[in-house]
């Protein structure tokens, strides 16, 4: 196992798949010669050449449209949208075209493609470059949705996404790009649709995603050590397919559910999970379901303001102490 950054795991995952399959091609803005604005795709053009790794004009609709047209005719494109906020300029392509094509055509149209994007806050970039928009993708039938928290998951889930015959939206959390972690050497492929239990507790089950997984773990640590509250932490990893089995069984064990979401409150993925638990796990619940989210505001840019807007480990500790007792 080598230690890689989350950022390098992206390039490693793409390279592994491009090596394996000539039909995997990669396109986006500033992704080739510059190696991406987050330096997550450095070295790919040198290795796979300018026909497979392509710089594009600032034309997100064309980028995603091209990926779609290529996917339905035999290629397996990976498209990068530089910041997930920019999904909004090509949302028609993603939500109305790619997601619906197979179903509308009753299975005629294959759509094996991956859209990678840098998601989330914490970089002082302001409200238009910091959104967590996993729920934008989750709410659209026909999209698979993945958001890894660790470098190993980046490589393994990205490989799984590329091999998946359906369209996958792959959220890379930009605040994690410099995170380091062990990543299996050689060919490594994970499985979509599996959550991971990272920590076992008995008082409460915390369900988190991407950057919030790390904060949940940190909070669980403090809660256990300083307050005697013991928490299970589940890393959802994949919103669609959703591993409801793991979530429901972990909630059943502790009797409590807390979701930790980076997105603003309304209609976040945590709401969906809460509603599933409130239906299917109702009788096992020992108390209210708690959602910890960014308040329902755009993300401010100044350090202090941004830090206090996003859920922090301290806030998780504070809210759990107040509400679990």
């Amino acid at each position, binding site marked *: 196992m080598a230690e890689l950054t989350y950022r390098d795991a992206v390039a490693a995952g793409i390279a592994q798949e491009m090596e394996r399959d000539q039909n995997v091609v990669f396109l986006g803005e500033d992704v080739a010669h510059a190696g991406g604005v987050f330096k997550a795709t450095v070295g790919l053009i040198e290795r796979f050449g300018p026909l497979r790794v392509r710089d594009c004009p600032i034309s997100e609709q064309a980028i995603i449209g091209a990926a779609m047209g290529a996917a339905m005719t035999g290629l397996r494109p990976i498209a990068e949208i530089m910041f997930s906020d920019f999904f909004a300029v090509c949302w028609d392509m993603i939500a109305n075209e790619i997601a619906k094509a197979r179903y*509308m055509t009753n299975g005629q149209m294959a759509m094996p493609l991956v859209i990678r994007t840098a998601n989330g806050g914490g970089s002082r970039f302001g409200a238009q470059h910091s959104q967590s928009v996993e729920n934008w993708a989750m709410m659209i039938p026909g999209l698979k949705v993945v958001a890894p928290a660790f470098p190993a998951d980046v490589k393994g889930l990205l490989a799984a996404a590329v091999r998946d015959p359906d369209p996958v939206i792959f959220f890379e959390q930009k605040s994690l790009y410099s995170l380091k972690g062990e990543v299996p050497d050689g060919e490594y492929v994970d499985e979509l649709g599996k959550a991971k239990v990272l920590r076992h507790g008995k008082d409460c089950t915390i369900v988190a995603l991407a950057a919030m997984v790390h904060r949940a773990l940190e909070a669980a640590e403090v809660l256990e050590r300083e307050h005697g509250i013991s928490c299970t932490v589940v890393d959802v990893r994949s919103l669609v397919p959703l591993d409801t089995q793991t979530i429901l069984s972990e909630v059943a064990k502790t009797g409590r559910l807390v979701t930790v979401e980076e997105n603003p409150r309304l209609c976040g993925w945590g709401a969906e999970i809460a509603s599933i638990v409130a239906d299917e796990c109702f009788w096992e619940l020992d108390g209210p379901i708690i959602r910890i989210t960014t308040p329902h505001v755009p993300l401010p840019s100044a350090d202090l303001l941004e830090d206090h807007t996003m859920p922090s480990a301290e806030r998780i500790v504070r809210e759990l102490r107040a509400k679990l007792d």
Partner: protein
Amino acid sequence: MSTTARKNAATPAPEVGSETRLELYRLQLELRYCEKRAYDLFLQNLIKGTSHLSLGQEAIAAGFGVAMRPDDYTFCTYRGHAHTLARGASMTGVLGELMGRQCGLLGGKGGSMHLTDVAHGVMGSYAIIGAHLPIAAGAAWSAQYRGTQQAAVCFFGDGTTNIGAFHEALNFSVVWKLPVVYVCENNLYMEYTPISSVTAVEHPAADRASAYGLPSIVVDGNDADAVYLEASRALAKARAGGGPTLIEAMTYRHSGHSRADPGKYRPPGELDAWLKRDPVPFYRQRLIEHGVDERTLKSMEDEAMGKVEQATANAKASALPSVDDIEKNLWSDGGVAWRN
């Protein structure tokens, strides 16, 4: 009609062969009769929802249909019945889909606006304006990458030239030199609004070609020969690695925008003037001038009508889709599950 002259007609016009001519006529007949049938089926309430006919615009679909290679890709709009049929899709499948039957091309899941027949290269009909232009570019990119010399042909209306995706697709296709042909069918109207009232230039496509370094091409969209020749040139260019072509075909739709539209916004006399240039009788006349005899024409017409009758009967006889289909084919595994 000055606007229908090809602006850069430097190349001497090649001839259209007589077999090709018969094929062009046959196709126009089928498209015409099938669309008319669709209209009748509406009136009988056998087709629900909405539907957008291309009565009057058949020469364009036919011209391209005949010029294209079987493995080329077609991208249509909601006004795509003719373009789909022109690639050889089953007429039963088309009428069945309009009627929401099991035999429909999409088993009733897509409807009139989304006809698709991947086996015949019809890579979808798109109902949100502009979307399919970049998608066609992607199919062309794929062909280029795979080295197959396939081309993609993308049909759209005059109104579509004002949406952003048009601009992105054109620039992108030229920069990547993609084998794609963009065909703007200028029928003078968006839904009910004249294109001239919302567009900065006279020819919404051709007058913008230069913004992408492309020549300005306007063709008479009611003359199947002219379309066929222009299509052949553009497809040859695409296959030769010469990149995309943008063609503006002048035409007119005889009926309203969609089923709900009586077309009252048209100035008096406009429809009549265009009916005089109806592509089907116009082309019949040309065939007669070229010595095709009345009997041959009549038998082609009977045959086309027979095909429509048969397809109608097939579609009517087809079962409704099964409610179980709702839970099928969202994913490649055939199912719709979002959870375990």
